[in-house]
């Protein structure tokens, strides 16, 4: 089947739509996470989200109902451990994520009959998203873009020099809490689309790609969103054409884009 024929299906429209919204979020948030050396946060929160989804399936509650608050709680616990208990950020992420995935695995082993559902959250499938899920991700994208535009200077100042930002009267701990909460929401809502194993790469790779261009911060932010969009749309199309798993194909297209940019920058 060619791409034109595939584009006539509703599920393909929904996949592209949700892909666009996920890219806007990942391209924007990802840059702040990478620059604040919080790249692993996405990975850790995906594990928390996986554990929470498993708990939801185990007790028979709609997974989002339980995964959204628990992932946010997990994110805030990581921040708390880092700031108050003097645990290094990467270690704090490691502790919370390991505990969550261990709980998830135990719950999955004790359950009967939902292992197929668990697998769909581990690897995701953008082609199965429902219209209500598209709307939820669209609202999240709008929220993230609004926060970044409205608090652009505050986010930029905190990312560039957190201590100096405090001398400007910026409450940097609140900024950090907002950033990790947005990330937690993104992970909790997008895990079904991309999958727990792959979602952090979608957050990190566009930002890393954009940073290779050595542009100003504002331009880097725009490039990051553009690379996320190109890789997401390219990944979905390639997966439809080659009949490969969509989440994994999207991630490999992200990696290929990074490789292409690195090569071009080296040649130049």
């Amino acid at each position, binding site marked *: 089947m060619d791409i034109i024929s595939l584009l006539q299906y509703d599920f393909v429209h929904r996949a592209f739509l949700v892909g666009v919204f996920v890219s806007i979020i990942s391209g924007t948030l990802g840059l702040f996470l990478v*620059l604040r050396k919080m790249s692993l946060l996405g990975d850790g929160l995906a594990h928390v989200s996986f554990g929470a989804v498993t708990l939801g399936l185990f007790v028979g509650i709609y997974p989002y109902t339980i995964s959204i608050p628990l992932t946010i709680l997990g994110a805030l616990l990581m921040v708390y451990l880092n700031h108050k208990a003097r645990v290094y950020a990467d270690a704090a992420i490691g502790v919370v994520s390991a505990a969550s995935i261990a709980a998830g695995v135990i719950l999955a082993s004790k359950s009967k009959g939902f292992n197929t559902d668990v697998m769909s959250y581990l690897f995701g499938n953008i082609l199965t998203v429902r219209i209500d899920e598209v709307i939820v991700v669209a609202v999240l994208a709008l929220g993230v873009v609004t926060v970044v535009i409205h608090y652009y200077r505050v986010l930029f100042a905190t*990312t*560039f*020099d957190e*201590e*100096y930002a405090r*001398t400007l009267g910026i409450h940097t701990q609140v900024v950090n809490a907002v950033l990790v909460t947005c990330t937690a929401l993104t992970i909790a809502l997008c895990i079904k689309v991309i999958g727990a194993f792959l979602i952090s790469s979608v957050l990190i790779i566009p930002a890393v790609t954009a940073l290779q261009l050595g542009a100003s*911060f504002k331009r880097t932010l725009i490039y990051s969103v553009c690379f996320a969009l190109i890789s997401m749309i390219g990944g979905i199309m390639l997966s439809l054409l080659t009949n490969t798993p969509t989440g994994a194909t999207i991630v490999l297209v992200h990696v290929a884009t990074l490789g292409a940019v690195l090569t071009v920058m080296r040649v130049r």
Partner: protein
Amino acid sequence: MNKKPLVAISHLSVSYHDQQAVSDISFEIYASDFVGLAGPNGAGKTTLLRTILGLEKPTHGSVSLFGKDQKEFRAWHTIGYLPQQKTSVNHLLPATVEEVVALSIPDSWDRRTVRESVRAVLNELGITHLSHKLFSTLSGGQKQRALLARALVTKPALLFLDEPSAALDPQARDTFFALLKKLNKEQGTAIVLVTHDAGYVGAYANKLLYIDTHLIYFGDFAHFCQSEQMNKYFGPHDHHIICHQHT
């Protein structure tokens, strides 16, 4: 004195894990003061500065800024701060000099004023040619000037500098201090400059704040240099070293 102090410190003490870094210090800083904040290594100079700026919490005593208790103070853009070179700047972040300078400006300023203020301060510091360069690609001296521009862009009434000459060669240091003196004289900007080299700063400062965990001296530089008591405290050699450049 009828003028209102820009900074009023009263019986300030700061401790870290039961170790006293600053002990019972009181002083006031007024408009047009150029204060050299000196003392030996570990005397609490940077701690004192960071406490005034709200980066450290006092154990005892109070900090008042522009007549307001520090906790209620909101007009942080009226205070400029140039931290030490080895600070928390994120060198991975691809920010242009223009972007770095503009980040000190409150959101309430309109875009045109922001643009003009950034252009004006870069021009004043002679670094207009660097405005589109990435901060991470600048030399030590250029970075220092860009960070000074960041501190000055809002035309603060009060400027704090922490060891600002550490990354500068002697010629750049003279130019830098002459610029500070000009700001102090022409715009009445109060300057507090942390230094381990009280002798050098004596050429520019009109007041000296000397601490060694507790307050040793605060007052006119000239008075310090004439003080028999201070001569006795520091010994004639060290007293001369501190005073030899003061005019």
